[in-house]
């Protein structure tokens, strides 16, 4: 059992405010991912939770108790560092058992606990080795093992996969998701990689410039981004943004004029709208080739990945990405027409805030536990 609350956390470094009043609630056994571009304050926030950095103001609460003044070790947390931060002069076993040794746990019990954690991570054959004799992935597992041994109430991960190669990263991602289920612990994970955030999180916290832009489940952020930053940050390839003009706003949505002059209605609530120039956001996967479509452009670059083909299309002065079928026969220089799914399009006002959708996407409420449900039911 461990919940975490942040109340109006502010952090100042020599007069510069790097965290500007963050409020957040982390529920028990939740996998929360802090994501954002570098310098957004996500690591600083994690280090404040860990106790390695003090908050300038605000309250950090674990299970309802304020812990701002409690030392890192007494908070009952464990942290996995980006650099792994293994103790180079100790064996894997000593690395993992170091916290227990400091806590005065007898040698036999220490051994047993280290072996239990090693079994979870398949580290038993490596226990006698020094970190220098391990591969990157193995070091990472030892760092996680060191955290597990402490049996913490909350696990903290600071970009733990960014030093691994791509294939290993995917493997460790799956392993971490498995660990989260197996250990049933609360986990807070920092990354700049939105794919890691989308695949592992129950709840994503998008940060920019020390401010929380949006908090929600991966599908919530994907289908209902609160503003243009979140819309552009979540999803790969990035969402396309086109400048459009408002024609009319009614109960069916907002009618806008596209760059080519065609008009279409996006089903969002425009009743409070005052601006005339808006931004239309369409994800590459929601654009499709359509002979009579309302958008047109000339293909500048084609990237064929086999299953999917990315078309980079010049529409007026914007370069738009289209995720087309792998078998698409278009060539560079072709001028094509495109259509898009109105229900999946987004409109942003002059302040870059998204206009609320008239209907919620059916998957927006889905979280990771829901993915599991069918397989459990199938097993019974």
């Amino acid at each position, binding site marked *: 059992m461990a919940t975490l609350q942040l109340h109006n956390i502010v952090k100042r470094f020599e007069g510069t405010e790097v965290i500007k009043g963050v409020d957040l609630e982390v529920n028990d056994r939740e996998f929360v991912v802090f994501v954002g571009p570098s310098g957004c304050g996500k690591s600083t926030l994690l280090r404040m939770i*860990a*106790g*390695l950095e003090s908050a300038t103001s605000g309250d950090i609460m674990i299970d309802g108790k304020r812990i701002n003044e409690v*030392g*890192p*070790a007494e908070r009952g*947390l*464990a*942290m996995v*560092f*980006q*650099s792994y*931060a*293994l*103790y*180079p*002069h100790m064996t894997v076993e000593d690395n993992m058992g*170091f*916290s227990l040794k*400091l*806590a005065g746990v007898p040698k036999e019990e220490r051994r047993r606990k280290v072996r239990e954690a090693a079994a979870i991570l398949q580290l038993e054959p490596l226990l006698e080795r020094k970190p220098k004799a391990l591969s990157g992935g193995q070091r990472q597992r030892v760092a996680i093992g*060191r955290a597990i041994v*402490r049996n913490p109430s909350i696990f903290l991960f600071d970009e733990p996969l960014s030093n691994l190669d791509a294939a290993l990263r995917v493997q460790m991602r799956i392993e971490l998701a498995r660990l989260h289920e197996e250990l049933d612990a609360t986990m807070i994970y920092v990354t700049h990689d939105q794919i890691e955030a989308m695949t592992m999180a129950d709840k994503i916290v998008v940060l920019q410039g020390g401010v929380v832009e949006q908090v929600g489940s991966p599908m919530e952020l994907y289908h209902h981004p609160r503003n243009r930053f979140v819309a552009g940050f979540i999803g790969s390839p990035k969402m396309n943004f086109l400048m459009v003009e408002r024609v009319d706003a009614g109960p069916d949505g907002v009618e806008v004029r596209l760059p080519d002059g065609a008009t279409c209605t996006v089903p969002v609530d425009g009743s409070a709208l005052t601006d005339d120039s808006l931004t239309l956001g369409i994800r590459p996967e929601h654009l499709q080739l359509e002979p009579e479509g309302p958008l047109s452009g000339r293909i500048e670059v084609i990237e064929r990945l086999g299953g999917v083909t990315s078309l980079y299309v010049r529409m007026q002065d914007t370069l738009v990405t289209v995720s087309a079928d792998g078998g698409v026969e278009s060539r560079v220089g072709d001028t094509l027409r495109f259509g898009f799914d109105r229900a999946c399009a987004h409109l942003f006002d002059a302040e870059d805030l998204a206009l609320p959708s008239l209907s919620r996407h059916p998957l927006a409420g889905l979280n990771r536990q829901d993915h599991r449900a069918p397989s459990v039911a199938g097993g019974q």
Partner: protein
Amino acid sequence: MTTYKTKQALPAEGHLASTNAAGETRARHTPLVPSVGARRVWLTLLGWGIALIIFFPILWMVLTGFKSEAEAIADPSLIFTPTLESYVAVQARADYFKFALNSVVVAFGSTLLALAIAIPSAYAMAFLPTKRTKGTLLWMLSTKMLPPVGVLVPIYLLFRDFGLLDTRTGLIIVYTLMNLPIVVWMLYTFFKDLPRDILEAGRMDGASTFQEVIYLLLPLTLPGIASTGLLSVILSWNEAFWSLNLTSSSAAPLTAYIASFSSPEGLFWAKLSAASTMAIAPILVFGWLTQKQMVRGLTFGAVK
């Protein structure tokens, strides 16, 4: 053809520069270009030449110590009958072992004390710096620029009032203060090379500051600490100004011992050489034994 040769030579030379220490690797990779081989011979000769010039006074001193006084002042010659008569005469005049013991106690005592003070200081400066840390370090180093004679009188008076004149304790205090700036500075650079994450991981694991230092910092920077300690021992051993001014007999180290021969027997070169040889022998042997450690420590971080 010429272009081809140049192209061949260039990477070979680059390679030479990068693997200076590994002579064998170099030889295997550069057999095609004779000029590199010649250069290597030349460099080797130059290296030996310089080393010999630096070592010559010591060699000559050792040789002179084994000569008779007559041979010592005669025309320089490498051919003579070795004799221990100077050593016997020197030992009869002053008890070498008493001075040597003082040197050992003072050199190692002051080094241990300096390390005990410098390790916590360097830890604080390296891992908990403030905006004044850099300035403090520079100020500490600047105290080394002051000629010691400038503070001789006040220190002498302080020592007299506190009863520290001619005591080992007094010398240990002075040597500690003398070496502290260098010791702190060196430890600071070694500590700075240690990734902060490791200490933070230790803190997350529940280590107190003291445990962090004992279990993580010291073992991980041991090569650096060792070479700093060795340097401090050598500097203390060789120090003459304070030992001559603050000791007379009971706490006098080997530097005072040699000095005591220089004036009354300044003309007796063989005896002076014998005394000097005995004075530097321990630290020379010590330096030789720890040479590897010294070099490893002084290049620590650079080759990581």
